[in-house]
């Protein structure tokens, strides 16, 4: 438990000091918010139609592009070897890293979502569904992505492999995520879609830290 908390603390600290992820997510919001209304003009209706899509593409990209370094930084400087020879189990380590990753890329997105909603002229009824869908979906992105990052750790042509491995697994989350927001906005019942997202989350929360841990161990060999 000690180790789990220490790992999260370290990841958060490093993220603020060295990595651009968190701020990049916020920065991307700024750009999206400035740019889309610019590109599309203030026509009502158009903006709000694409809100859910924009939101999820952001979430996906933020996750994907920051995942590249989830384990490889630690591998480069030798920390990974030391962590694997430490009393902290690899699964706990992977879980801590995944949680920290979500805290720095998924969470800011959820927090900023209402703001995006307003600037994209989405109806105010969409705020809660947006945040719910993101809250249920973004952790799954971090979880699945961690497995991809771990699997490709020691691989040749990692740059090509990682998206090939991860993107297919992301599609279902995206489909249901966008579906849930859109359903809610149009006044349909979205509970079923939330349930599917929650199901994905549960399955991946149960499997992914373990799978990532196994993959990391393999790459260290």
């Amino acid at each position, binding site marked *: 438990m000690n180790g789990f908390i220490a790992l999260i603390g370290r990841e958060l600290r490093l993220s603020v000091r060295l990595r651009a992820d968190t701020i990049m997510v916020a920065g991307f919001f700024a750009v999206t918010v400035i740019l889309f209304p610019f590109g599309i003009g203030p026509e009502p209706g158009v903006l709000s139609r694409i809100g859910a899509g924009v939101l999820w593409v952001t979430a996906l990209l933020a996750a994907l592009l920051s995942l590249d370094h989830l384990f490889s930084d630690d591998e480069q400087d030798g920390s990974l070897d030391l962590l694997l020879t430490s009393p902290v189990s690899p699964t706990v380590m992977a879980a801590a890293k995944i949680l920290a990753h979500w805290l720095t890329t998924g969470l800011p997105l959820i927090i900023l979502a209402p703001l995006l909603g307003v600037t994209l002229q989405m109806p105010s009824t969409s705020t809660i569904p947006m945040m719910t869908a993101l809250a249920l979906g973004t952790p799954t992105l971090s979880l699945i992505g961690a497995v991809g990052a771990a699997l490709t750790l*020691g691989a*040749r*042509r990692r740059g090509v492999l990682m998206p090939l*491995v991860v993107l297919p697994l992301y599609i279902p989350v995206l489909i249901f995520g966008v579906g849930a927001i859109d359903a809610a906005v149009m006044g349909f019942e979205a509970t079923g879609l939330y349930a599917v997202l929650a199901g994905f989350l549960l399955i991946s929360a149960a499997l992914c830290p373990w799978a990532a841990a196994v*993959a990391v161990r*393999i*790459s260290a*060999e």
Partner: protein
Amino acid sequence: MHALANPNRFLKLGDRIQPWALGLCLICLAVGLPIALAFSPPDYQQGDTVRIMYIHVPAAWMSLFCYGVMAAGSASFLIWRQPVANMMARASAPVGAMFAGLCLLTGMLWGEPMWGTPWVWDARLTSMLVLFFLYLGYMALGDAFDRPEQGDKAGAILALVGSVNLPIIKFSVDWWNSLHQPSIFSMAGISLDSSMILPLFLMVGAFQTFYIVVVLMGVRTQVLTAKVRAARLMRGT
């Protein structure tokens, strides 16, 4: 079961099965293809384009089946450390990818006359494309390591994680209102004219036996490659 875990015994069994499978495959093709492409009745709605079905549907089923074998093989490789199971999984991947590609291709050919467009971003079509990419990812990952053992294990994990996509493909037609045909088989029974069932099943049989032949060949290649590697190791080069 345990006997099959030994590569040599597995190969011996394979030697016995392979000619039968090959013969069955040829018979199914010889009987099934003419019926499917010429003698079966055209659909009252779709006309002759319905004949694409006899390739499309078996290919779709086989691509799902191959992934199932791949996932099961990977699981028993990871859990019980059965090298043969992994070899089956790895041999299934290219066949599965081929079937997935065939399904996509015939689907697009079929979609052109039926829906007026070869492609829409509908749930079933998308998830099938995802399956195709998963196959590619699995094959690429398996070959991406300096140590083959590493590639085996990494690929096995990916296969397992990716298996969540299977139910999505299978039930996508029911979960979303899709352009795509719903399942032929349902609780209500078979919703297909009996004159179409025979050729369809002959083609399924042909594809299935073809799969068996190719997988046995693939496993044999892998066993031999591993032996060569072991021999090289012993020489220390």
